[in-house]
């Protein structure tokens, strides 16, 4: 990561892949139904990370966050990730 440069902030969302059983989401679905919320079709329970970093350009920032996702923040076998920019 470049020490100087512009400050960027990304929000990384990590969710279990659609075909993977999500026991936490299932449990929350059941709880919503029990307390009377009808019509809930599906809950996926995921994680969100706010990543603040310095980088020379938005391309560099975006590549760095993508590498973080692939190496640590998400496990591609069971999770999908997406990146939103809070400060681009």
């Amino acid at each position, binding site marked *: 990561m470049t020490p100087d440069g512009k400050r960027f902030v990304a929000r990384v969302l990590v969710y*279990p892949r659609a075909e993977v*059983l999500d*026991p*936490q989401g299932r449990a929350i679905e059941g709880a919503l139904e029990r307390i009377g919320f009808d019509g809930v079709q599906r809950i996926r329970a995921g994680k969100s990370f706010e990543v603040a970093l310095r980088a020379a350009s938005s391309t560099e920032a975006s590549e760095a966050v993508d590498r973080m996702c692939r190496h640590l923040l998400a496990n591609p*076998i*069971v999770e999908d990730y997406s990146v939103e920019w809070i400060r681009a």
Partner: protein
Amino acid sequence: MKCGIVVFPGSNCDHDVYHVLGHVLEQETVFLWHQKTSLDGCELIVLPGGFSYGDYLRAGSMAAHSPIMAAVRRHAEAGGRVLGICNGFQMLLEAGLLPGAMRRNRDLRFLSVDVHLRVERDDLVYCSGYRRGEVLRMPIAHAEGNYVDTDEALDDLEQSGQVVFRYVDSEGNLASGANLNGSKRSIAGVCSAEGNVLGLMPHPERCAEALLGNGDGLALLTGAVRVGRGAELPAAVGG
């Protein structure tokens, strides 16, 4: 055989493995702190159970990137023996040294109970004291032991004979009631294509002395330190 047990912040089965390897099997055994970058000539590396770095992100995910893991990876790639138990198995998956991933247990409960396992391979050095189809009893103690992978990857795993242990009932039959964590195809343990890396969720080190009520796990650790080659095991190398 010189054995090295990697100690992570949060490991809690490291001393149990040490006891079995060092005292019961009388092997030269050392602890290796996770910040080290060398394996000090150990031929068998054990990644023990417990926790690591709080397992905050996913179980084993941060340990998979700790300094010693580069040396463990080189050791494994050179054909050296690596045994991952419980959290150690999760690390091997996160490090990509074994295929697949773990999800939370199907019923979201931490499971601490004895289970039955069926031995699917007896040509690995680790299983040299078991017969194929033999049913063992071993304890499990985990919250994330729900083994998953894509259907294609699981088919490949089966075809290449990398499924080493499955959860079964006491008769040795597959049953959803015996697969408590919900693992795909009841998988409890898998090995690398070459057979030198083995990971399993159950704890052989906690059932390695008949005096303590159950000795079913001793043969696995005996096999792990057996000198010589298994049918499909390349010669072990030091790291």
